């Protein structure tokens, strides 16, 4: 996956974060765009008058506007838009990560992959509808997958990739903290308690010639 090739200098952390944020943002934009496009289009030729049914994320539309569409449309788009908003928020959070306190890091990565997963679950469920429409054996019905469905699938792949890039995989170079002036001491978490060398080292006897100052 993305992470194998991502080892190296300290800049790779920034590149990974930027690519992840851009992917999350792109997933959000694609999902919003997809919500305006047809999920599938069915051409019905039962009578001489052809009829085209279009399913969008906001309900069915017919080319023959019979009843003025009094039937309430199913708002499949609501979870898609909600996921897109969450994706956009997490894209901003991922991008702003170095300027945010460390306690934001966990929620940010959870939000990034979580919103991508919500989008995927929603898209998949809508996709089950498309599968049913496609498997209709009736020769009078011609079904085509709409651009909305394919855009949604791309949005999911892009968002999931972004969500994975936003995780703090161990072994990857982390963001270098801003350098304070003077001595920098990095303190490692100590699981055993007290067994490690203290931050400023242990005093040793200086046996060198000019030692003992």
């Amino acid at each position: 996956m993305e992470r194998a090739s991502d080892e190296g200098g300290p800049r790779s952390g920034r590149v990974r974060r930027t690519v992840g944020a851009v992917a999350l943002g792109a997933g959000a934009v694609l999902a919003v765009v997809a919500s305006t496009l047809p999920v599938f289009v069915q051409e019905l030729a039962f009578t001489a008058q052809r009829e085209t049914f279009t399913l969008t994320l906001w309900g069915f539309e017919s080319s023959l506007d019979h009843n003025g569409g009094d039937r309430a449309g199913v708002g499949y788009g609501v979870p898609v838009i909600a996921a897109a908003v969450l994706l956009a928020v997490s894209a901003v959070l991922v991008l702003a990560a170095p300027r945010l306190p460390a306690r934001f890091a966990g929620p940010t990565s959870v939000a990034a992959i979580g919103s991508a997963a919500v989008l995927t679950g929603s898209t998949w469920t809508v996709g089950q509808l498309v599968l049913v429409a496609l498997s209709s054996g009736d020769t009078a019905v011609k079904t085509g997958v709409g651009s909305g469905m394919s855009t949604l699938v791309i949005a999911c792949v892009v968002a999931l990739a972004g969500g994975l890039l936003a995780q703090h995989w161990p072994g990857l170079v982390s963001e270098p903290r801003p350098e304070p002036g003077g001595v920098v001491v990095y303190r490692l978490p100590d699981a055993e308690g007290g067994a490690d060398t203290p931050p400023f080292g242990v005093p040793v006897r200086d046996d060198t010639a000019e030692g003992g100052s």
Partner: protein
Amino acid sequence: MKRLAGVTALLAGAVLTATGSTGSLYETTRIDSGYRSGYRMTLWGGEYTTPEGATEVGDVPILFGVPAVVAAVLLVVAAVLVLATRRLPAGVALGARVGAVVAAGLLVGAVWTVGQMVRAATEESDPVGGTLVATAGTGMWLLIAAAVVAVAGALLVQQRPEVPAYQPLDDDDTDTPPMGVRIHPSVSTEE
């Protein structure tokens, strides 16, 4: 302790999903000129009850249950991996926690989308006439509970210190190398 509660919640989410997937999402009953007909929808399609009392299954069922069941399986896998997290390399352990979030998110997306369908079906005005009674079924409520529990579980198994507050040891750009750094000759202790 928190981890154990999270694992339990993840497993409970999976069990609730499995239970909910067999229950009815919504049921409609139509009473028209003395005849009673019904429609019942589960995650695996719908079935009609004709006024004569016979049940008919729709020709091509909508398998809304597939993503939900995949999410439930992922929840179980993530729960097991999180439980064994101490014996796993750090990358896999993080993968398990991320997997728990993915599974919970997948379930939320699937349940929410199905919920939108159920909402529309139960709010729908009857175009034909007669009395139409539509109610959300136990399956729907179980799935909503499953999604909530799974999200809680996924959040509980997360670990706070995700970003190391120190530079990782393999970052040789800023850390002191194992053999020390070359210092200016004027302060050298070498002979």
